[in-house]
């Protein structure tokens, strides 16, 4: 288990989302300590991505989300977001360097990139073992490479909360192990809380501190070994306990 600093946390209280009259999420309570990796799991349509979108401020919700950083409440927290995929053509001319610079600098990439900016980006990419990808077009990256580049972007500047949306999909086993190892290093080094939405129950268990099972509401939460054996888990995924 990680050591939290006890001064930073994310507190989601009574969060509910409705699309028209249809309730998607009801009364979600989540408390995250810093340096904690929480895996959010649930069947398709359980509202996992909706919860992430609510935390990002993309959709309206009732309830409250509070971020406490170094003992003080932060009104506008920094949220690092790693989307599942990008809206990109394979022949898009945007290079990894362009992509990183466009998110963090004002001087337009089409006018060229300063050497000092390049050095900063290479430094950020090296934290996710992606420094060699800087000149590649993002459309040419493999699933694992893209997720690492997105992670580097989400971590610069260092966020208060890191949201990873289905990062495991499209990554091979080796790529996934490297990705989770980097996430683990990042949260320890920078005191970041991580919420990770995933379908891949097998690979997340060794890396998550806690798992929260949702299906419109929180069904159960706890240590991975507890939740993965819980009867509610089997019911939610339509599986039988009988072997």
């Amino acid at each position, binding site marked *: 288990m990680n050591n939290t600093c006890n001064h930073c946390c994310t507190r989601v209280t009574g969060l509910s989302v409705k699309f028209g009259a249809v309730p998607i999420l009801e009364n979600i309570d989540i408390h995250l300590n810093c340096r904690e990796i929480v895996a959010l799991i649930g069947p398709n349509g359980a509202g996992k991505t909706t919860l992430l979108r609510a935390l990002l401020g993309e959709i309206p919700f009732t309830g409250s989300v509070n971020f406490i950083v170094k003992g003080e409440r932060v009104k506008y927290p920094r*949220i690092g977001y790693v*989307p599942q995929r990008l809206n*990109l053509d394979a022949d898009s*001319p*945007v290079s990894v360097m362009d992509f990183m610079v466009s998110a963090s600098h004002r001087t337009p990439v089409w*006018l060229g*990139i300063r050497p000092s900016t390049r050095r900063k980006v290479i430094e950020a990419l090296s934290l996710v073992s992606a420094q060699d990808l800087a000149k590649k077009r993002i459309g040419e990256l493999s699933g694992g490479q893209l997720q690492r580049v997105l992670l580097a972007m989400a971590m610069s500047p260092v966020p208060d909360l890191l949201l990873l949306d289905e990062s495991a999909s499209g990554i091979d086993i080796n790529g996934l192990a490297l990705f989770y190892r980097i996430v683990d290093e990042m949260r320890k080094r920078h005191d970041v809380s991580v919420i990770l939405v995933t379908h891949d129950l097998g690979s997340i268990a060794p890396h998550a501190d806690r798992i929260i099972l949702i299906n419109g509401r929180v069904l159960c939460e706890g240590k991975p070994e507890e939740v993965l054996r819980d009867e509610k888990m089997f019911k939610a995924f339509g599986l039988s306990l009988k072997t």
Partner: protein
Amino acid sequence: MMLLWNNLVGRLPFDWAHYLFMQNALLAVILVAPLFALLGTMVVNNRMAFFSDVLGHSTLTGIAIGVVLGFVDPFLPMLLFAVLLAISVNIFRQLTKAAPDTVLGAFFALVVALGIVLLSRGGGFAKFTSYLIGDILAVSPRQICWLFLVYLLVTVYWVVFGNRMVLTSISPVLARSRGIKVFLVETGFTVLLAIVVASSIRLVGILIVNSLLVLPAAASRNISGDMRAYTSNAVLISLVSGIAGLVASYYWGTASGATIVLFAAAFYGLCVIFAGFLTKTLTVDDE
């Protein structure tokens, strides 16, 4: 300024350079070509080729509204209608879950039908067919001054919002998570697109304006490894096509706008072949 330009071009050792209409047309091409190239890079990145086509055709309706309202020069109603349409489409896209193509198809049908109905009242449609193919040789010094202002406006927007447009085109959700006002950035871009299309429609024509937007950027994509190369190659292709097309149309006696498009299309074809050859060579090397 215009006198200086005309003097300068008039000294060139070519037949065409001695005519005032060619001197003005050349300046118009030099202003319009980079504009089309810049806007085209984002049109192609955002998969908005159909949208810019709708904007081009909307100018027909703008002209029709101007005629109905009694405007002698329908430029202002044409410009306002294109801008209004750009904003409306952007808002409508947020409100509906329908595919962007469906929304644009509906707007396309509406504006073209409305334009034709209004202009064809009393059988007068033939008077407006010059707008379909345009005439860059008839460009006036006043139009050139306006194009220069538009040129400055687009350049400033591209410098200030360039990076935000790149990130928005890749992922609006990611862009929003980085604090970018996606709706404003997208609306600003579409309004600029409307202004450029409306401002150049008399020069290049409704039928081919979209080709001039899409072709240089589409060609450049094949030979560019990053945004700087993408933009500079698109501008270069657009300028070379523009100037070569204008001069060729003088010697061939053809419509300038369409001749420019032919050169841009040739560049596109060459770039696609070059990229295909390069990919094949690299694949063989890897094997």
